[in-house]
């Protein structure tokens, strides 16, 4: 199974990505998608500016995907992460995991997101409505903690 990995500034089409991952594969019984969306932070936020490390971003997401593929019996896996300016309501990240059974699809998608949050080289800066720089978003310790549950199994 070769995962689909993309790092891009443009938006993605969830239905098209599901279709690409499942069309013609009669073993797919379960498809889980995760979409991360830009919130407006109680109306304060004009946009997020997402910086990334070109080259490493794709490679690191690929490494995470390879681990997921080795751990669950997946029939398909896609991960797309956007960079650049993203406004409230716009998509930031997409993971699609397909498998014969639902538990594998759920767990693989959740695993992908936990690791992409804390291991894929992206950084978010907040831009406030008045145009001022809201500063870099701090990493949350709960995101780091989320990785632990995957090593305890």
């Amino acid at each position: 199974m070769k995962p689909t990995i993309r790092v891009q500034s443009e938006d993605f089409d969830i239905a098209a990505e599901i279709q690409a991952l499942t069309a013609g594969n009669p073993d797919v019984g379960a498809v889980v998608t995760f979409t991360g969306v830009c919130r407006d932070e109680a109306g304060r936020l004009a946009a997020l500016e997402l910086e990334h490390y070109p080259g490493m971003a794709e490679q690191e997401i690929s490494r995470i995907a390879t681990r997921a593929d080795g751990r669950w019996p997946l029939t398909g896996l896609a991960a797309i992460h956007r960079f650049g300016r993203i406004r409230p309501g716009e998509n930031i990240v997409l993971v699609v995991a397909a498998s014969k059974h639902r538990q594998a699809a759920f767990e693989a998608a959740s695993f992908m997101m936990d690791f992409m949050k804390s291991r894929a080289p992206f950084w978010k800066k907040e831009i406030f409505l008045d145009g001022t720089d809201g500063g870099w978003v701090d990493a949350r310790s709960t995101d780091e903690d989320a990785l632990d549950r995957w090593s305890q199994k």
Partner: protein
Amino acid sequence: MVKLVYFAWVRERIGKSEEEIVLPDSVTTIDDLLDHLKQRGEEYRNALEHSDVIRVALDHRHSQHDAAIGGASEIALFPPMTGG
């Protein structure tokens, strides 16, 4: 010569996104590199002050601070990631 690349507030505080430098022979680990950079000026000391939070990638791979730099040609310094 090794290429150093910086991201997010590490980049902003150092004031550049990349540079090429020659590493002294005494610099063999990432910890050595961080100490060496702090001697290059106020902006580096400011960026790398809390060096325990600085994440480092050697040739696009996350690496621990005690790792040997070896023959890495690109070393990236950045804050904890906030993707997803």
